[in-house]
């Protein structure tokens, strides 16, 4: 039996639970120096002066670095994946509370901390703007005066920043004729939905160690999801060739998007080159709140429906609060933006998606890359429409959900999206009946305080396209295999899944295969570990690299045996004759015969990059916008206490179409994990701000779900619709479970008590307030 399709526990699981896995967080070198950052206390202002005299006197302090120092150096001090707008340390001005302003380097952390507290910074405060709609206005204070496009991601090089405004990107999509569509509609619905700032909180905070080796190379160990990008971007910042930078990433303690792209790596590498010593910067958990957040959004949806239950037009206007620096916001604005109309067959769509700077910490990807914010809007509105029109909300979805060959709003025809089966499974799991609808008069009854409701929501995400994954598969003369790739195992189980794919392709047992962790001196380029892309992209690269070895082996044996290569196949680590299964030779012997000794190896290399057609800049149309699309859905059953407004989740069902589930156990785990994160962000997680400062930026005040918050009944479902281009038909699943949880809960609350909440999170106070209004 092959490895693909089997429930296989994590290869590193035992080492992790017995504390044997080394994370960067646990790496300490002898004589290493420690960095501590002084952060801005004002949201927007010019730096007038920085007094470091007292700090320099602290014993153990080696160097203090400010933006003024950085300006004197021959480097590119600004970085960013979409636009190079973020300084490695504040230069001349600060743009959010918590922005790094001074870096203190000392022999021990305590000296660095003491010194940080002795630094005086004088600011000339400027008017700040925190509200995304205010920031988008023409007369708003400008946060970034000059924006340089980065241009190192193929999909982003067309995105042109807009200067002289906080709207740094406006993505447009025009499909059909939306105004004509609204004229055909019998009813038009317009609603505004918002989502909050939330954070990732992986167990391991951001941490980077950098050193300069005797040959002048810069060695970086970092907890990051994108080692290949770290190498190129740090090389750009330091103005050195990429081969001068070596980035290594061991297992990392969770990422969820906060460890994508450069965070502290460029600064730490720069400091290592300045002090010519090994240096370490390890952020506290509190500092991770100031490093990256999830985009808050405002979405305005207009939807036209006909009386027979069809959506004929939808226009979407989305404002993404990207904080003080664009980070990956522009890509989210575009790539998630084009899914804003939902997984529905709608002939006329217009989308305007705006990426907007505000004086808040930068926002970026968080498990779903902006899609959960969009699903929140369109799936909430689906139920609003259905209830107003007197339709069964689930039937309303069935009516227009995207099926094989249907055109999505980009104009791309759908391949392998299992929405029908997802809806079928969800309906069954909560025993959905259209008649289960709340009656308003129930609320008036004094005796009943708890009401139950159910709902179903679905969501669609496109995988990051174009992007590139390279892999090297190396078979040794004993038939064992090493797979070199830059995919980061951050807890999602990629080592295990990629090993399964190599094993299945080569017919070599998993025990004989090892995965080399990212090391940019060794492992080939990979765009990022994100976007639910690794199984598909890296899986394909490994599969095809392994097939190269297989091909080489078959032709060698064919040559030796004087037969046609087509008459041979591989099985159980052997090349076998199809016509005479007794005629075979082990892989090990094939390689040994090649080198005339039991040594040497056979190497297969493949760089996988699917086809892609850039979106038309005016209409957002492309028949090949994404390599694949993944479908997810959620069913929930809730109980609402009308005396408090508190929602209790009775049942949560997360369903996904991952294509072929390479490791079903792992798929179920991903769905559980994503569902858990999503329910926290649906019900209570939120960064609260006062004057631009996060006031609950600690884990004592910002709570994520614990086991006590999980529903008793938590189910996950897999719908396998194989993708023709996926390795063994696989797509991806890391984000799917998080897409549609929030609207499912909000819709179930409506189903229970007839109260509609349009602003996330669904706090008891909002619900209680709405109940009081409803009662009057």
């Amino acid at each position, binding site marked *: 039996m092959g490895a693909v399709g089997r429930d296989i526990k994590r290869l590193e699981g035992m080492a992790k639970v017995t504390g044997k896995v080394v994370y960067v967080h646990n790496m300490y070198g002898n004589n290493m120096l420690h960095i501590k950052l002084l952060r801005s206390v004002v949201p927007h202002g010019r730096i007038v002066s920085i007094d470091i005299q007292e700090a320099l006197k602290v014993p153990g302090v080696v160097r203090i670095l400010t933006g003024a120092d950085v300006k004197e150096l021959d480097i590119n001090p600004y970085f960013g994946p979409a636009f190079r707008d973020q300084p490695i340390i504040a230069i001349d001005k600060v743009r959010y509370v918590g922005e790094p302003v001074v870096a203190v380097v000392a022999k021990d952390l305590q000296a660095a901390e003491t010194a940080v507290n002795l630094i005086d910074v004088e600011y000339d405060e400027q008017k700040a703007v925190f509200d995304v709609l205010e920031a988008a206005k023409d007369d708003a204070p400008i946060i970034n005066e000059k924006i340089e496009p980065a241009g190192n991601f193929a999909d982003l090089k067309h995105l042109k920043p807009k200067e002289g405004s906080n709207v740094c990107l406006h993505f447009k999509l025009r499909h059909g004729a939306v105004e004509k569509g609204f004229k055909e509609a019998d009813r038009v619905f317009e609603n505004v939905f918002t989502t909050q700032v939330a954070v990732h909180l992986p167990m391991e905070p951001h941490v980077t160690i950098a050193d300069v080796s005797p040959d002048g190379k810069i060695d970086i160990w970092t907890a990051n999801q994108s080692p290949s990008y770290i190498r190129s971007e740090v090389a750009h910042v330091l103005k050195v060739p990429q081969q001068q930078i070596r980035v290594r990433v061991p297992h990392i303690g969770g990422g969820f998007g906060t460890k994508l792209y450069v965070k502290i790596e460029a600064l730490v590498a720069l400091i290592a080159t300045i002090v010519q010593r090994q240096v370490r910067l390890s952020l506290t958990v*509190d500092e991770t709140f100031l490093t990256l957040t999830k985009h808050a959004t405002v979405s305005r949806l207009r939807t036209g429906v006909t009386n027979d239950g069809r959506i004929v037009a939808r226009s979407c206007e989305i404002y993404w609060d990207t904080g003080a620096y664009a980070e990956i916001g522009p890509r989210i604005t575009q790539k998630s933006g084009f899914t804003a109309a939902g997984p529905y067959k709608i002939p006329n769509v217009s989308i305007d998606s705006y990426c907007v700077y505000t004086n808040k910490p930068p926002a970026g990807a968080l498990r779903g890359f902006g899609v959960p914010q969009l699903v929140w809007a369109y799936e909430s509105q689906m139920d609003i429409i259905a209830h107003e029109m007197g339709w069964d909300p689930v039937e309303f979805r069935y009516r227009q959900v995207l099926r094989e060959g249907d055109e999505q709003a980009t104009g791309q025809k759908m391949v392998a999206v299992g929405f029908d089966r997802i809806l079928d499974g969800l309906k069954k799991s909560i025993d959905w009946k259209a008649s289960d609808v709340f009656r308003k008069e129930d609320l008036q009854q004094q005796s009943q305080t708890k009401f139950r409701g159910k709902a179903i929501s679905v969501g669609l995400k496109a995988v990051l396209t174009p992007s590139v994954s390279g892999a090297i598969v190396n078979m040794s003369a004993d038939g064992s295999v090493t797979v070199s790739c830059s995919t980061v195992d951050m807890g999602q189980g990629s080592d295990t899944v990629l090993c399964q794919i190599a094993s299945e392709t080569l017919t070599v047992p998993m025990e004989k295969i090892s995965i080399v962790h990212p090391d940019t001196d060794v492992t080939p380029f990979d765009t990022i570990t994100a976007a639910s892309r690794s199984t598909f992209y890296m899986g394909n690269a490994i599969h095809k690299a392994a097939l190269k070895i297989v091909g080489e082996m078959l032709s060698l044996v064919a040559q030796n045996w004087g037969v046609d290569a087509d008459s041979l196949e591989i099985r159980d680590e052997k090349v076998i004759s199809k016509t005479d299964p007794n005629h075979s030779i082990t892989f090990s012997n094939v390689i040994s015969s090649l080198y005339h000794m039991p040594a040497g190896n056979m190497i297969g290399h493949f760089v996988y990059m699917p086809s892609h057609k850039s979106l038309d800049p005016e209409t957002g149309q492309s028949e090949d916008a994404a390599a694949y699309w993944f479908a997810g859905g959620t069913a929930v059953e809730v109980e609402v206490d009308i*005396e*408090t407004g*508190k929602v209790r989740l009775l049942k949560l069902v997360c369903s996904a179409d991952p294509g072929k589930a390479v490791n079903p156990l792992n798929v179920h785990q991903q769905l559980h994990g994503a569902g858990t994160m999503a329910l926290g962000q649906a*019900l209570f997680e939120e960064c609260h701000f006062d004057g631009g400062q996060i*006031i609950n930026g600690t884990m004592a005040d910002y*709570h994520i779900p614990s086991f006590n918050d999980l529903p008793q009944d938590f189910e996950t479902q897999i719908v396998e619709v194989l993708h023709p281009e996926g390795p063994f038909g696989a797509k991806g699943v890391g984000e799917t479970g998080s897409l549609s949880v929030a609207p499912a809960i909000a819709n179930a609350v409506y189903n229970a008590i007839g109260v509609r909440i349009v602003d996330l999170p669904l706090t008891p106070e909002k619900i209680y307030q709405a109940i009081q209004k409803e009662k009057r």
Partner: protein
Amino acid sequence: MRGGGNLNTFNWIEPETLEDALKCLDGEQEACRVVAGGTGMALILREGLYKPDVLICLKKLKKELSYIRVLPEGGMVLGSLTTLREMELSPLLGERYPVMRQAMKRLANPRIRNQATVGGHLAYADAHLDLPPIFLALGAQMKATSTEGTRSIAATDFFQGYYVTALRENEILTEIFLPPMDEAFKGVYLKYCSAATDDWPTAGITVLLAAEGMKVTDIRIVGSAATEMPQRLAEAEEILRSRKITPELIDKTGLEAEQAVEPIEDIRGSSWYKKKMIGAHVKKALRELMGW
């Protein structure tokens, strides 16, 4: 902004006896506090909210100050260094004060309960903590000791505000006396968390109710978490005292409780919402006690 906190920049003293500890406390003129389990202190140090010069650790006084005893004349005493976990597992305490046993289950988590002490819990006087309102409802007496001697402080006088108690700078809370609880009393403590289940509570309600049939003979209602310190809700109690309890009267009691508090707005709710939650949980507590 917050940094990692300066955990090591103060003097750490570990006296061997209570007497030494008290002398130490008496002599110190700088910013000085005693530390028991340290769960609260570690938090405020990390947050940089408190920068002590001297911390006096009481861990070596465990033998002296850790005990749970039943008094022959009724009631119980707890040594102030008794851990919350020891209280949770004490059958003596659980049998006599079931409301305490119930509260312990949802008080922080086992790791914290293993470390935190009852004395630290009370002296810290965080408005969100679970035991202060229960001790207030039970009519506990706190024994404060200094080099000058000891004095007894009633729970009603002990809690004086947000993180403020009646303890003087040179005093250590050494013992808590719990008066005997009339068997007619039934008690309930409701902890309401509006956000995550393991978050700090938005509102807490403790009700001790003694009734003969439907007639209320005695009642104590204490609100917490929403208020700056545990607060006895006497007006609400009066609605029910010596009356026959009815659903309508419970509603009225809830309304009275709601009006008696002036909650502080924070990330866990507006003042308005917290008022409503005090009222709602008074009703819930009473219904639970009546089995309705």
